[in-house]
């Protein structure tokens, strides 16, 4: 989770030349360790070969690129569902005391429950329902279309992973709105809707975004683990496990590197976006 304050001109600070030192050392060490050739560890060159042609099919599992794409698409759908449900619920709990009392306990009970623990139930309930089926896009059924790979069971556990941090951070954001600011709106004769749009939302936006950031990170961790379990045969997590089963350790290592890189890119993108002020300043222009 990104919580640090960003200094001017430094961007998010996630990617800096200094940050490459340790990865470079690790690759160098890896190179030395595998120079003689071992049965267990793939060499950097082997892994690089896999990474260099991400479009090639791997053991008829689809390409690296396709599987990353599938995992990302699942995260996007799950996250969107989490945002669409979590934001209004969090707002309600922040602004309305009865709703908060009604939902706080159940939220705090559900939050620590690992989404992975729900995967078996999720598969039983949703079976093989995909986005294609849900949207009634039957003509897509033959081809290897992205929507065919987005199982609702996956979406559900991602939703589970995303929704609670979003709910709680949104609630904290709304509860933290300064009373003064609401009073300014009131004496200005602002209606409820105007106050909601122009005071409550911008005032709580930094917290809401921090909930979203947290949710993205959790979703990425959850999806990789979920894909390694039964219930799917696509996605970068599946490719990782499958390459283990067929002893393609070069692919395995490539998957791990890609997962880490995507995670870091998420962190950077969200940290850049997370500067709520920048976001609002852009709106002003």
């Amino acid at each position: 989770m990104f919580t640090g304050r960003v200094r001017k001109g430094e961007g998010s600070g996630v990617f800096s030349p200094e940050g490459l030192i340790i990865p470079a050392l690790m690759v160098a060490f890896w190179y030395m360790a595998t120079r003689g050739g071992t049965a267990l560890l793939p060499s950097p060159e082997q892994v690089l070969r896999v990474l260099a042609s991400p479009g090639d099919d791997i053991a008829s599992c689809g390409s690296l690129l396709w599987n990353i794409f599938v995992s990302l698409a699942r995260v996007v759908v799950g996250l969107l569902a989490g945002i669409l449900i979590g934001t209004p619920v969090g707002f309600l709990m922040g602004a309305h005391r009865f709703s908060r009392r009604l939902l706080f306990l159940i939220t705090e009970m559900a939050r620590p429950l690992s989404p992975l623990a729900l995967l078996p139930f999720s598969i039983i309930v949703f079976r093989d329902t995909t986005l294609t089926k849900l949207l009634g896009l039957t003509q897509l059924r033959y081809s290897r279309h992205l929507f065919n790979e987005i199982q609702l069971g996956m979406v559900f556990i991602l939703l589970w992973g995303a929704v609670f941090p979003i709910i709680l951070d949104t609630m904290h954001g709304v509860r933290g709105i300064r009373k003064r600011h609401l009073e300014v709106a009131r004496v200005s004769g602002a209606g409820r809707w105007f106050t909601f749009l122009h005071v409550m939302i911008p005032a709580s936006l930094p917290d809401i975004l921090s909930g979203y950031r947290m949710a993205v990170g959790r979703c990425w961790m959850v999806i990789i683990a979920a894909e390694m379990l039964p219930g799917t045969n696509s996605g970068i997590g599946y490719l990782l496990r499958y390459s283990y089963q067929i002893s393609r350790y070069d692919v395995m290592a490539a998957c791990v590197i890609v997962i880490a890189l995507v995670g870091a890119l998420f962190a950077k993108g969200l940290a850049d976006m997370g500067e709520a002020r920048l976001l609002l300043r852009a709106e002003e222009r």
Partner: protein
Amino acid sequence: MGAGMVIRGVEKHFREKESELHALGPFSLTVQPGEFLCLLGPTGCGKTTLLRILAGLETPSSGSVSFTGSGSRGRIGYVFQEGALFPWLTARDNVAFPLRAEGASWGEARARAEAVLSDVGLSGFEGSFPHQLSGGMRQRVALARGMVSNPDILLLDEPFSSLDTRMSHLLQEKMRELAGGLSATVVFVTHNIEEAVFLGHRICVMGPRPGRIVRDETISLKGERNRLSAEFTELLLSFRRTFEEQVAPV
């Protein structure tokens, strides 16, 4: 002409768990339309509570406030002690906020906001965010926001008390200058005797809790008020005496 106010026997109690705090009253006062009234009193005498009741932010525990003229509260301008500017809006949009809240378009509201910002001497800072402005500038933005909708009643809660003396003198002069062009009835709350004497057409001195009026006087100083003049000093001393004898006896 702004709205007049008739305050009759207004009382306010705040309930805090076991104890009850008697914050104000019973308090009665008639404010003439277009008057510039300074409510002068020590901290905790209930003047902010009174102001909030006038603004409709609190309801009195008993008593009533009625408005002469249109008969309703009409448009209110309220300047909070610490500005309470929206940190996510520029100076221009902070000032435009009350107009937008009333349904004006962004274009209209911003044009008017820029005019009022220039009145308070902030031309060139329209696009600045509150955190980029000094304390004095922020208070001027707050002042502009209070006046932008041409309110019937302008309520100010110690707007300059957090500023240094020089800046607060500067803004008091600005306030006097602007008040001439306003049609609003102004209620200006302060604990600063000099500020009250400098600004008020009428000064009501409130005693300590629960807030009653110990002196109510219309100020006869005409035209420019000069802090160094003999009349000003005399008036200042006379209010200081009232303060010492009846408000906060030493």
